[in-house]
């Protein structure tokens, strides 16, 4: 029984068709990753699944009473809004302090502090978002580019956290990313999206498919090598793969507001 199923989904934004005939279904306890270049409709797909956008056509079925934990791509906290970590986590429902602490522990957050959200580092902020999403005991966790603004080792650590969460809670995870390298190591299944579903399957299958290679070009070999590497060995030696990556450190996610402009090497190769 799948938690959420999209059949033949087409979505238009401002009259422009962003997604066309997308089929997708998520089973319980699987980690499904949607990858695709910038502007391929990844975020639009997620927003359709949570009900923020009404699809142009197609059918969307959710399991009755499905609990979704959502981690948005960017969360801009207006400078005029004072918000502590603990108050944020208790939105929109007040929860007992011990539930807050339990969710924080699951998300790898030391403890629920009274610090202002705006003062957190990018990695801490992502973990707070994750902890908040875990509070509703989600059956499905949806994360939109959760490692944007994290450096490579921070991103790897975050994905390991997601895997731990899945093991501990048994929730399904739907991830969106344009960072192929690390994310594929953590996935059971990958969907490659570019306005439509280009290809899907296990990480190995997708990485070796011609559609994927067309879309992501020369970086494929690197990604695959990295994938094997990450899977076969201890995950902590992140310094080995820096040469694949050309990390451009960006600010913490809390302050990212502008439109996405091809921020890294992968995106540039598409142009």
């Amino acid at each position, binding site marked *: 029984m799948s938690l959420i199923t999209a059949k033949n989904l087409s979505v238009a934004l*401002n009259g422009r068709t962003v997604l066309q005939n997308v089929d997708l279904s998520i089973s319980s306890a699987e980690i499904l990753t949607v990858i695709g270049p910038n502007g391929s409709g990844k975020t639009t797909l997620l*927003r359709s699944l*949570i*009900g*923020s956008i009404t699809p142009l056509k197609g059918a969307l079925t959710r399991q009755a009473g499905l609990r*979704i*934990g*959502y981690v*948005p791509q960017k*969360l*801009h*906290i*207006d*400078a*005029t*809004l*004072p*918000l*502590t970590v603990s*108050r*944020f986590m208790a*939105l*929109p*429902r*007040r929860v007992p302090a011990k539930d807050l602490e339990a969710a924080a522990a699951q998300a790898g957050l030391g403890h629920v502090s*009274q610090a*202002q959200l705006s003062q957190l580092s990018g990695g801490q902020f992502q973990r707070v978002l994750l902890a908040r999403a875990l509070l*509703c005991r989600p059956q499905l966790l*949806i994360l939109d580019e959760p490692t944007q603004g994290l450096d490579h080792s921070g991103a790897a650590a975050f994905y390991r956290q997601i895997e731990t969460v899945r093991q501990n809670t048994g929730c399904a995870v739907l991830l969106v990313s344009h960072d192929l390298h690390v994310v594929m190591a953590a996935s059971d299944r990958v969907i490659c999206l570019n306005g439509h579903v280009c290809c899907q399957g296990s990480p190995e299958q997708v990485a070796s498919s011609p559609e994927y290679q067309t879309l992501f070009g020369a970086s494929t070999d690197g990604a695959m090598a990295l994938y094997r590497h990450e899977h076969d060995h201890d995950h902590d030696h992140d310094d080995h793969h820096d040469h694949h990556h050309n990390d451009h450190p960006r600010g913490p996610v809390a302050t990212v507001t502008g439109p996405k402009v091809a921020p890294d090497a992968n995106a540039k190769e598409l142009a």
Partner: protein
Amino acid sequence: MEMFDAFLVRAILAGVALSLAAAPLGCFVVWRRMAYFGDATAHASILGVALSLAFALPVFIGVLLIALAMALAISALQARGQTLDTLLGVMAHSTLALGLVTVSFFSDVRIDLMAYLFGDILSVAWSDFLWIGLGLFLVVGLLGWRWSALLTCTLNRDLAQAEGINPKREQLVLTLALALIVALGIQIVGAILIAALLIIPAAAARNFANTPEAMALIAAAFGACATLGGLAASLHWDTPTGPSIICCAAALFFTSTLLGALRGRGLS
């Protein structure tokens, strides 16, 4: 002396009640960057005064209707992704001008337009308290009831949507509360100054607050202080009451910003 006491008591009650109800709404106006929105709605209320004269309605009803219509129109345009800045300016000033022109057709009705532009808190009658009490109860009740949902929507619409909150419905709650405050505030501080009473205490409170709730409470305290201080100043120096209240609020804002900057976490 008896007369003096009665009108002052009414002014204090009405002013403090208005500032208490305006505080939490003002916080949302600040957080959601709706300052211009509040301004435009308030300006349009003069058209509501004209409407009330034309149809012999209570001023509260006419202003409420126009403020609601204006706020809904702006919300609808905003939802369609229109660039609001210019549009708000056009609508705010044209509805204000249209209201002023319309009112001039009723020259046989002797009304003091200045009282609606800048408020006349000292003329609040006991009979007005029915509207004031009812309206403020509604505003505070609405915001209290929807507080967490509104806060979640303010942070992020998708986050709210994933929690089963409908951002459009919450926006409507704010719109209704804003129209109510404008309709109540027009007699007390006037159409021009009501937006100031919403924004300034909330902005002043930001420097001392760690949570949204604390900010609303501190804003309420600041608003009440400004009202009392403005009334006192107005009696003492015979200055217009509405502007005196706003001047007090502004003094609070600058003091608080200065203190906040000294503590190293001013309004950025």
